[in-house]
């Protein structure tokens, strides 16, 4: 009986070796010996690198800073575009032990706590924005990775017939897309300029650190 057990154990060890699951000493070859914090940091790093997500995070963080004053950030189709972060903001990054932080509350995105978290190395990954364009107001949740539009609130439709309403709704969606694109254009122009490293980033860091 004991011999049969031993033979069975040996066969399964051989099978594990042939599968590549175990080395010659019988120890697992791909056993993950990293601690939880290390695994989380690696995941956070992968999220940051996937599809150059850092660009989206830099955009949303820059936008938070630039929008605080309430001034128009761009002009689109002849009307000013004003951005306001509202309600909820998700920060992600590789800062110390914290890889994600969510702040909720009407004024939360501009709160000193959020700025302190940004100063420690987190960046805005997802945010709810209000976009005032001329007389129209849109609300949208954007995330840094794909900049997809989520749970957007469109301005009130003006037309009444069903077909017209559908067309108006599509037009508004496309207009919302153009507003987001314009913000990206302004950001990329500023980021590609020589002043980005010399002036913009130090000013942005100073704004974050003011809250400390």
């Amino acid at each position: 009986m004991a011999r049969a057990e031993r033979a069975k154990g040996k066969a399964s060890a051989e099978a594990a070796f042939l599968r590549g699951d175990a080395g010659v000493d019988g120890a697992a070859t791909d056993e993950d010996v990293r601690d939880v914090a290390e695994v989380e940091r690696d995941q956070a790093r992968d999220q940051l690198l996937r599809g150059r997500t850092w660009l989206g995070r830099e955009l949303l963080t820059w936008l938070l800073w630039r929008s605080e004053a309430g001034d128009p950030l761009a002009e689109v189709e002849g009307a000013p575009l004003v951005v306001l972060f509202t309600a909820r903001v998700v920060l992600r990054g590789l800062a110390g032990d914290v890889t994600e932080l969510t702040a909720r509350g009407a004024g939360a995105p501009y709160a000193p706590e959020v700025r302190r978290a940004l100063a420690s190395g987190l960046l805005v990954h997802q945010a709810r924005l209000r976009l005032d364009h001329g007389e129209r107001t849109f609300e949208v949740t954007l995330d840094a990775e794909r900049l997809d539009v989520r749970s957007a609130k469109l301005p009130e439709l003006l037309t009444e017939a069903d077909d017209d309403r559908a067309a108006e709704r599509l037009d508004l969606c496309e207009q919302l897309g153009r507003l987001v694109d314009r913000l990206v254009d302004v950001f990329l122009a500023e980021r590609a300029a020589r002043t980005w490293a010399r002036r913009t980033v130090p000013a942005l860091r100073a704004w974050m650190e003011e809250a400390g």
Partner: protein
Amino acid sequence: MPVLRGAVTFARFRVETGKLPQPTRRWLARGLARGAFRPIDVKRGEDDRSAGFVALEDPGSTDFAAGGLERGHALFAWRVDTIRVKAAAVRAELERWAAAFEAEHRRPPARGEKATARDQIRHGLRQRQEPTTRTFDVSWSLETGELLVWAAASKVVEEASAAIEAAFEVKLSPRSVSAQAVGAGIAEDALAPTAELVGLSREEVRHGEG
């Protein structure tokens, strides 16, 4: 139909078509027919999933000859059918079968007999199972080249956009910041992370991407 009412959630793409083939309506109908939805054939195939294009206002219709083009917008839907046989249902049937087997043969079924019975039970349940259907709207402005896939799940967005590329032989570019930067002609080198903000050096990013 989120295009017409309800939650406004979508992924955006820029479609590079060049000059649109004429007549547009026929080109559109032909492309949609190429990637049209085909129901799962439970009797013949073993596929548990099927996906393809259907008419926007009728997920049961793959007749695109009549419509799909309204005021410069191509409107259609991406339909995904799945059949999922619940493990709990298989287990319950298998336990009943095992009890009946034991009563008849005065011994419990062997492992191989049980495995065969499990396959037969699963197959039988699959044949009786109605597929779950989900549809996701697609709107495509042929004038501006802006295409919206009205879905939140990245798997659905990726699958639908790949099907559109294949059916219409077009290239879809996402509207992420990275894609827009590349589209704007910004050099790759200038797209490296800002170390003071992100906390990663250029070298670390290169290492991570490689």
